[in-house]
Structures are given as structure tokens and as C-alpha cells.
């Protein structure tokens, strides 16, 4: 599937009858996991948050508590936010109890938990696809995503404007998606 051009209006949500549980999960589970892992910093807990969020949203849809389907992404976001907040309150109480006993709270999780969401199989496929990109595009993606340099700094290094860099970035990502046959949605 090709990626929509930068700046295009996102595709509209399908109608309610086209949003059974599987469809809803396929569309939103990864977004919820990505959202959750930044907060709970644990892949298993992030999966639990995703499950619970989808369960509550499906309950709300079945009970006709979601009147405006265009607002469904916002409703899902707020539900996930609420569940993560409950998790924080729970761990906060535990940490405070440990602190009262003169102990440090539990150590924080992985340094970059987002990386835990990508399987090793997918990493291998992406590495192979990156290897088939032209060297300048591969270097650009490496500088932006792996070395995490700012756009302005990368543009200066490559002797182009930040605007031109963004165009090249989107072009490189589109090529990568085509090589991977990546579903964008």
C-alpha cells in the first residue's frame, strides 16, 4: 500500500458496522501499545493496557455510548490515557510505601522501550530493505532515526535546506515502505 502524500487529510474512519472487534484492534492496538509503553515502560504491561482499552471501547460501542464515530480515536486515546493514569497511581502508592520504609522506588524500565515493540523478524526485514536503498537515503534515515540528530543539523551537514531534507525523508520512507510492502494503516 502506498503512503499518503505529506500533508494530505487523513482517511476517514469506516462506518460503525465496519468496526468489529478485530477491525478495531487491527487499527488501534499498535497505536495504544506505542502510547502506553512510553508511560509504563514494559511491553507486557503495554499489551495489557491495549487489551483493556479495546475491551472498554468495544463495551462502549456495543452500549451505543459513542454517538459520534468521528470522535472514536479521541475516545480511544482518552480511555488509554485513563488506564495508564490508574497504573501510575497504583505504582505511585507502592513507591511511596517503599519510600516510607526508607527504600528506593523500583528501578525504571528499559532505556528506550519503544524499541521493544519491534520484533527481531521485522528488524531483519527492515535492515534488508535499508540495504537496498540508495546510500544517501540510507544515511539520511540513519542520521534522523538512529543517531537522532536534529533536522536542521542534518540539513546543514548535507548542504540542503530543512525543507528539502523533509521531502527527501518522506521519499526515502516511501521507498522503504514499498520495499517492505508495509501497511501504513
Amino acid at each position, binding site marked *: 500500500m502506498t503512503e*499518503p502524500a*505529506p*500533508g*494530505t487529510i*487523513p*482517511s476517514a*474512519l469506516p462506518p460503525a458496522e465496519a468496526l468489529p472487534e478485530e477491525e478495531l*484492534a487491527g487499527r*488501534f492496538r*499498535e*497505536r495504544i*501499545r*506505542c502510547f502506553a509503553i512510553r508511560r509504563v515502560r514494559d511491553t*507486557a*504491561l503495554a*499489551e*495489557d493496557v491495549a*487489551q*483493556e482499552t479495546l*475491551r472498554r471501547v468495544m463495551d462502549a460501542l456495543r452500549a451505543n455510548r459513542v454517538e459520534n464515530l468521528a470522535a472514536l*480515536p479521541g475516545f*480511544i*486515546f*482518552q480511555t488509554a490515557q485513563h*488506564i495508564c493514569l*490508574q*497504573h501510575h497511581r*497504583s505504582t505511585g*502508592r*507502592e513507591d511511596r*510505601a*517503599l519510600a*516510607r*520504609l526508607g*527504600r*528506593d522506588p523500583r528501578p525504571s524500565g528499559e532505556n528506550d522501550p*519503544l*524499541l521493544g*515493540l*519491534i*520484533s*527481531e*523478524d*521485522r*528488524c*531483519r526485514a*527492515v535492515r534488508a530493505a535499508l540495504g537496498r536503498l540508495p546510500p544517501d537515503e540510507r544515511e539520511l534515515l*540513519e542520521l*534522523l*532515526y538512529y543517531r*537522532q540528530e*536534529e*533536522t536542521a543539523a542534518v540539513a546543514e551537514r548535507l548542504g540542503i535546506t530543512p525543507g528539502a531534507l523533509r521531502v527527501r*525523508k518522506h521519499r526515502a*520512507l516511501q521507498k*522503504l*515502505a514499498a520495499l517492505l510492502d*508495509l501497511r*501504513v*494503516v
Partner: protein
Amino acid sequence: MSETTITCELVDQRDLDTRYLAGRLDEAEAEAFEAHYFGCDRCWGLVRQGQAVKAALAPPVVSAPRALPATRRSTPWLALAASLAVLAGGLQLWRVIGGRQRPEDTVRGPSDSLQLVVEFRGDTLLASWSRLPGATTYRTRFYSEDGVVLLERESAETSLVLPPGAQGRLVRETSLLMQVQALDDLRQLRGRSGQRPIARPPKI
């Protein structure tokens, strides 16, 4: 939620996708961007691709067992006391709010407290696990290698037999992960197994 409204144009102008993945957005910006990508396939696609590139280029991590701090190892009763204090507080809160919070809201629980054995015999998947005191329901989940839940079942039994006709989306997968979660009668999570890999035997 943050009041900042994010558009695709703003994502591009401020490089919100790359800065989000680099952890360089402040909390309000990050949250506003997350609220945006929940409803925007294009920007979610940027995040997803960026994540994949970042993970693919990162050096492989050799995981080692996570050791507990020495202070906790030497005084396990402290952690136990803290847990009991939290539990007591939680029970009190439960009484005060009169059950307004649904029991299923709890998402935490001890891991690896269930022993799970799972295998394919021919095309039939067989699994069994240890019983956990206090648990009345066992929720089994099957994941793809990407962590997507493909199938979920609940039962009071400590075993599961899935012939091909009952495997749903599992039949398309050759490599799977399975986890069992133990729930009590209030549907609180009491324990769970680790995620066990399952390989489907090759067809001859």
C-alpha cells in the same frame, strides 16, 4: 489532554515524528502528538516506520537477568510490607468508592507465577498450566511475534485443546507466543505465565 492542536502540517514543520521517537518533545507536545496520531493514519505511519528504522539500526541487545538491588535482596520483608500496605490501602479505597471502579481495571500482576506447557501435536494445539490458589478463571492469549493478540480464550480449566477448526487466526501463523493470566472472582489479575514460544511443526 493538552490543548495544543496538532495538524499534519505542524508535524512536518516541527519534525514532531522524529523528535517524538528521539524523546525530545516535552510532555505536552508528546501527548498532543499522540492524540493526533490516534486519528491520523499518515502520521501514525511515520511513527511506525521511524520506530522500525531505529530498531533495525540499533545494535542487538544481549539481555541479562535483571538483578534486584542488594538492599531489597537482603530485606525482602520490606517489599512485602510495602505491598501489604498498598493492598490494605487499596482495599480501604475499594470500600470507600463502593465498587465504582471496575475490577478489570487492574492491569498489573506477578509474572511467571504460572507454569505453562504448550505444544502442537499434529495440527492440534495442546496447553496446560499450573493451578494458582485463589484464581477462578484463566485467560489464555496467543500473540504473533510482533506482539499482536491473535486469539483469546477464558476458562476455569487449567488446560486447553485447540483443534484446527477452533484456532481462528492462529492457523495462518507458524510461530506464536502464548501466555496464561490467572484472574480471581473479582477478575483481578492474580498471576501470569511468561510468554512461551510455540512452533507449528512443518508439514511433511
